[in-house]
């Protein structure tokens, strides 16, 4: 294969990569949207916040994204099966609007309701759901708005205790019903990061996260009859509606193990209690087992398990069997053993970002980056002329690759764009422009030294890419420790910088250099003036 074929082959490889990148970029939808499925129809509509009010408009169902915006119609009742239906933009929510078809949310007929993502509602016989649309690049909390909290132990805690704290924190956060909430250990297991994107009631959420972690045992039979039926895992008991007969303090051990009882396969949780607990437990189980009454175990008021009593337990040692999986049993054991947080946690950092504020920052950042790019682009064309155009293309290729990689990582849940990350992108664009300049300068220089266009392109790009490799490697080497050791937003910066450097080299090797070599043999000799290399020797 001669070198010319190789250049075209590299360009072909690049085209494949670019198509791949575009595939990840194409669903350029708004981050939040309503989607609906009604019969065969589906569609989506942009939303600004993670909750929306649905209701009736004069002509159909509407979704109101923000308190001050108008009701945005998502489907007309008459045309509910027509996904291409266009509806007047002037639709407003109307108190008098009545539909012959009832809107039903969670079994209740409503005129309007505030819904979280994931909630399904029906209109007549059609089912709708509020979904978060897939943006091509996930936005971090500082851009989307929401609540971010870092909790750290007051005294250094071991990893096991922090793991338990994490499980409890997860239970609490799940109780808040925020979609896409994340709870994870950070900083060498010495911090818990809780992120609640789009949460509106920050103060309420903080209260729930910061609570003590009370484990309580309640006889289901002692509850009002209306509540008894509601007692299932995950149910949040109304405050003051119950009276516990004992708390988690009496539990001494709780372990998950494989069931030894062949009639009840799977995993079970065995519990040990102290003397006080054993006595209370004996009383309660003795009076409960004849009717196989249930006992609800509550963590901070939320039901974590509600087993039925099968026998009177007088020795304290108890097994909860329930066809658990190993994971479920382990989790329940962990909660039982450490309902109260095993470590004393404090808020180390909280950040509450209004969604508009974050979006403003993003818009300004993107605008600034575009203006910067435009100025650089104009400068390059004035200075390098034809090669400046090639530089544009090189930057474009770099940019598509770069954003494509970020979008792919985003889809895999490995990347969310934050403000420092955005700064990393801006810096990477600058470095990518550097690489092209290195190549073009060296190319012109070698022509001035009397080489032919062809050999100048070959030798020039070789020398330039070696320089670039070293310079990029040094920047990369400085970003790695940042990514590994730094905490918080700096990590996002280091990550975008590292990916930017790799994409920079990829764009140079796959596009700029082969393209320059091809041009040096074809167009450059025909119009050296346009490429600003007049002094070159002819081929």
């Amino acid at each position, binding site marked *: 294969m001669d070198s010319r074929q190789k250049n075209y082959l590299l360009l072909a490889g690049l085209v494949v990569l670019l198509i791949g990148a575009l595939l990840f970029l194409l669903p350029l939808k708004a981050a939040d949207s309503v989607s609906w499925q009604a019969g065969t129809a589906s569609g989506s509509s942009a939303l600004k916040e993670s909750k929306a009010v649905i209701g009736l408009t004069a002509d159909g169902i509407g979704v109101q994204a923000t308190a001050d915006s108008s009701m945005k119609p998502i489907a007309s009742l008459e045309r509910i099966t027509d996904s291409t239906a266009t509806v007047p933009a002037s639709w407003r929510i109307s108190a008098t609007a009545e539909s012959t078809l009832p809107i039903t949310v969670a079994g209740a007929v409503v005129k309007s309701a505030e819904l979280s993502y994931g909630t399904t509602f029906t209109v007549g016989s059609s089912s709708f759901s509020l979904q978060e649309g897939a943006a091509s690049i996930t936005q971090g909390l500082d851009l989307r708005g929401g609540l971010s909290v870092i909790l750290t132990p007051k005294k250094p805690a071991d990893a096991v205790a922090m793991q338990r704290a994490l499980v409890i924190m997860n239970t609490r956060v799940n109780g808040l019903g925020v979609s896409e909430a994340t709870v994870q250990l950070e900083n060498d297991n010495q911090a818990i990061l809780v992120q609640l994107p789009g949460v509106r009631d*920050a103060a309420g959420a903080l209260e729930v996260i*910061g609570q003590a972690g009370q484990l309580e045992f309640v006889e289901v039979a002692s509850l009002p009859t209306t509540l008894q039926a509601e007692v299932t895992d995950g149910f949040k008991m109304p405050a003051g509606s119950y009276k516990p007969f004992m708390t988690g303090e009496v539990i001494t051990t709780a372990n998950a193990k494989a069931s030894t009882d062949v009639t009840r396969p799977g995993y079970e949780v065995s519990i040990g209690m102290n003397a006080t607990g054993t006595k209370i437990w004996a009383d309660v189980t003795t009076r409960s087992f004849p009717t196989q009454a249930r006992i609800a175990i509550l963590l901070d008021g939320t039901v974590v398990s509600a087993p039925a009593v099968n026998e009177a337990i007088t020795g304290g040692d108890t097994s909860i069997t329930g066809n658990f999986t190993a994971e479920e049993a382990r989790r329940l054991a962990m909660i039982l053993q450490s309902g109260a947080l095993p470590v004393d946690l404090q808020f180390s950092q909280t950040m509450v970002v209004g969604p508009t504020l974050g979006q403003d920052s993003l818009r300004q950042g993107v605008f600034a980056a575009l203006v*910067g790019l435009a100025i650089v682009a104009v400068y390059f064309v004035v200075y390098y002329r034809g090669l400046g155009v090639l530089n544009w293309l090189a930057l474009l290729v770099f940019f598509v690759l770069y954003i494509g990689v970020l979008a792919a990582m985003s889809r895999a849940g490995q990347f969310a764009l934050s403000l420092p990350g955005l700064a990393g992108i801006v810096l990477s664009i600058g470095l990518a422009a550097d690489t092209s300049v290195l190549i073009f300068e060296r190319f012109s220089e070698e022509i001035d030294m009397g080489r032919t266009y062809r050999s100048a392109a070959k030798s020039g790009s070789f020398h330039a890419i070696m320089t670039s490799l070293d310079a990029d490697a040094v920047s990369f080497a400085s970003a790695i420790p940042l990514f590994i050791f730094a905490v918080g937003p700096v990590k996002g910066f280091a990550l975008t910088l590292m990916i930017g450097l790799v994409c920079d080299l990829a764009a140079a090797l796959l596009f700029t250099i082969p393209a320059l070599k091809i041009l040096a043999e074809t167009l450059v000799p025909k119009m050296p003036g346009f490429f600003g290399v007049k002094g070159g020797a002819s081929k």
Partner: protein
Amino acid sequence: MGRRKILFAISGVLLVVAIGSLAFRGLTFGIEFQGGTVITLTNTSATIEQVRSAASGAGVSNPVIQTTSRGFIIRTGETDTVAAESQATKLAAALKIAQTDTQVSTIGPEWGANVTNSALVAFGVSMLAILAYISIRFEYKMAVTGMVALLHDAVITLGIYSLVGREVGPNTIAALLTILGYSLYDTIVVFHRIRENTENLSKKTFMDMANDSLNQVFARWVNTGLASVIPVVTLLLIGGTTLKDFAFALTIGLLSGAYSSIALASPLYAMWKEREPRYLALRKKFATSK
């Protein structure tokens, strides 16, 4: 290169000013390092007096209020998350600012120390990684002079922060660490050329060759410098409050980094190399410039 003494003098003066300012004025550290609360309000036409009275009404103690293009940044010593959040809510309500246009950050004092320590560790490891890389790929004299230029850039950037009284936040640290990479990027490009020209060096002194190398890469130096600085400067001018912080450090660092690669790293390296016997001999034979 012949004017290296002037350049050294400029760097010397800048360093003295920077170190002097750091010693006497010190740095203003953000709440991230000492704990406290920052409340950001946007989209408001309230006056600073209104904000001040609303703040005291909301129970905010000793607020430092700063105006931004479209709102205010209020800093307090409050480290209790729940209290800070309720103060901010009251404040926003009193000023009739929508909850969606506010941001509240609260940071505990220990966490701040934690962030600083991890940044310092990251910095130290970065330095070692770079020293090792340049020593292996090039030679240790380049690694050392490159590092001198780098520290020069870091000190000058921090000095300017101290001089203008700008607050040092985690973004500043991130930017400083980037400068570390970028300053070297520029230096490496020059060193690359010097090394290339060293291969067949026999007709002139090392210093003259280094000088020629600088002239050869000068156009590239100007163009790459501009290409990197322009986007960052636009970010500084129109990028919004949070990004401006970042862009400020990056702009100074990039300018200083570009300057030091030519004015500091290369001359220092050339002076050091001239002391090697091989190049001393060349010097005796061809010495024309000082």
